[in-house]
């Protein structure tokens, strides 16, 4: 990935972000009948975009193809469900850090065990841990088993006894999701521009050379895996807050696979690509669904067409159009 986006592309992305940010204003005018539904839908897509971006950090940047990433997404949600009192609001300043810490700890353990393997074996080990997480919540009595469990009252966000943000408000929550999306994007960009991030990116391009330069790739991979898992946990926390509900499907390999599709479709290793991928996949699904009952075939055909026509995803096309030179000259030798 390039350190700086080409100016024209940055402007287009900024414009898209503005259009999205103002949706609560213009959406009601453009889609009067479906505004509430679209608000909710877009909020959900922004949360998925955060999840996709966190997976891109592993897959696209560091070369760690995980097929169990949804486990941390689900875990973030389950921590909220398990920490919330049944009929009262939980204190966000308590449950959010606890949920993130809990997810980070799980990601560190899974990462520590998984990074011993590489290639397709890494894909399968992460799948195995993801499935173990799925069956753990699905088959045990903890938190409702396969039925999942409800979070009846959304967490309270208070400062000095006053409510700062009312998470029950659809508009407020839309902006919370938007803020988290933009915030995590900027944070990850800063991280990747740092000396730490440069090593992580180098591992994604050629791990042997990084080792040859005297770095220990395993330590960098473990930290990256933990950060990715924690951001996924944050997305899961938001998703559980939005729907007031968690179930094991959040951790399933279907969810992991779908997020991976968003990352590849959008363009790996670019961070903004997976965001576009999340919007493309979810909006295309919605569009095809309203068009025909055979939408699944259309979605499949669209994915196949994009693979054949756009080898580096939507972001690759965008970067080509903006005239960016490819930052990495070489291929990963295998």
């Amino acid at each position: 990935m390039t350190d700086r986006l080409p100016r024209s592309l940055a402007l287009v992305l900024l414009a898209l972000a503005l259009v999205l940010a103002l949706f609560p204003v213009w959406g009601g005018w453009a889609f009067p009948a479906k505004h509430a539904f679209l608000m909710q839908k877009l909020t959900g897509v922004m949360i998925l975009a955060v999840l996709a971006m966190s997976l891109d950090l592993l897959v696209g940047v560091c070369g760690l193809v995980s097929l169990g990433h949804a486990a941390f997404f689900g875990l973030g949600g389950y921590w909220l469900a398990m920490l919330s009192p049944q009929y009262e609001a939980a204190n966000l300043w308590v449950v959010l850090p606890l949920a993130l810490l809990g997810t980070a700890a799980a990601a560190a353990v899974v990462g520590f065990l998984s990074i011993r393997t590489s290639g397709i074996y890494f894909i399968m080990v992460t799948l195995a841990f993801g499935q173990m997480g799925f069956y753990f919540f699905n088959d045990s009595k903890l938190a409702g088993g396969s039925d999942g469990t409800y979070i009846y009252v959304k967490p309270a966000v208070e400062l000095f006894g006053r409510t700062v943000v009312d998470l029950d408000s659809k508009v407020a929550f839309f902006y919370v999701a938007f803020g988290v999306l933009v915030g995590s994007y900027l944070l990850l960009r800063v991280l990747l521009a740092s000396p730490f991030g440069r090593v992580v990116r180098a591992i994604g391009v050629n791990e042997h050379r990084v080792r040859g330069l005297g770095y220990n790739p395993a330590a960098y991979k473990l930290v990256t895996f933990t950060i990715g898992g924690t951001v996924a946990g944050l997305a899961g926390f938001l998703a559980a807050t939005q729907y007031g509900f968690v179930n094991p499907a959040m951790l399933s390999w279907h969810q992991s696979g779908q997020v991976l599709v968003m990352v590849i479709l959008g363009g790996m290793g670019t961070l903004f690509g997976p965001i576009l991928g999340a919007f493309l996949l979810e909006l295309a699904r919605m569009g095809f669904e309203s068009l025909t009952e055979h939408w699944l075939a259309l979605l499949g055909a669209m994915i196949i067409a994009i693979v054949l026509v756009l080898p580096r995803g939507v972001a690759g096309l965008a970067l080509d159009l903006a005239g960016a030179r490819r930052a990495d000259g070489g291929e990963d030798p295998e």
Partner: protein
Amino acid sequence: MDVWFFLIQVLNGVQYGLLLFLVASGLTLIFGIMGIINLAHGSFYMLGAYLAYWLAAKTGSLPAAVLLSLPIAAAVGYAIEAVLVRTLYRRDHLDQVLLTYGLILIFNEAQKVLWGNDVHGVAVPQALAWSIQLTDRLAYPAYRLALSGVCAALAVAMWFVIARTRFGMWVRAGASNREMVSALGIDVKLLFGVVFAVGAAIAGLAGALSAPVNSVYPGMGESVLIICFVVVVIGGVGSVKGAFLGALLIGLADTFGKVFVPEFASFSVYAVMAAVLLWKPRGLFA
């Protein structure tokens, strides 16, 4: 627990394992030789099962339906390789994952359009619709035994083809060094097409044969796909012997897990895989 009950569980585990081997062997060969991660492999299993259900209803005979479904699955497999997969050999594995994921969606939609969303049962053929009485209360269905026999025979045949024939030699050579094989003047394009088609046909056959035991339902391809990936990785990618032992291991672990610790049976399959990979990071026989 008495010895007959234990024997029945062993037979069930072995039968499930052999069935998994049929699907997993194609998966491991396609990855080992062609370097393609084929997520749509489970869809061939589903295709075989639905073809068996549909053709059995049309012809009135399950064996005829199974035999007819073989060339259809092979043809579909060959066509997909020739039209889509062939363009991706030089591309990243993740592009293949994405493309074959798209194929799964199309297969599932086709299944919905052609055969609907119901669960279908398929009758056991008359000649095998009896049971072997083991004790007063325990019996073992003849069809399951025959199914294990057919799968075992296929496994032996596959071993023979791979270990003892010229075609098998190409396949083994292709798995260990693709460039060298094409440098020696073997038509790699054709070899890949045939391996893909045969893999598809065997997966379809597994689906067709298991239809009377497991019934036919939407989404059956994906569940078998994930388990078969577990099998392939435990055995070591590209190793048919590894796939065989991995399949038996998973078949028995799943069956006995369901008997003794039903809450943790599915969990245990993945725990076995994680343990194997942490012990041997490239599988048992890579």
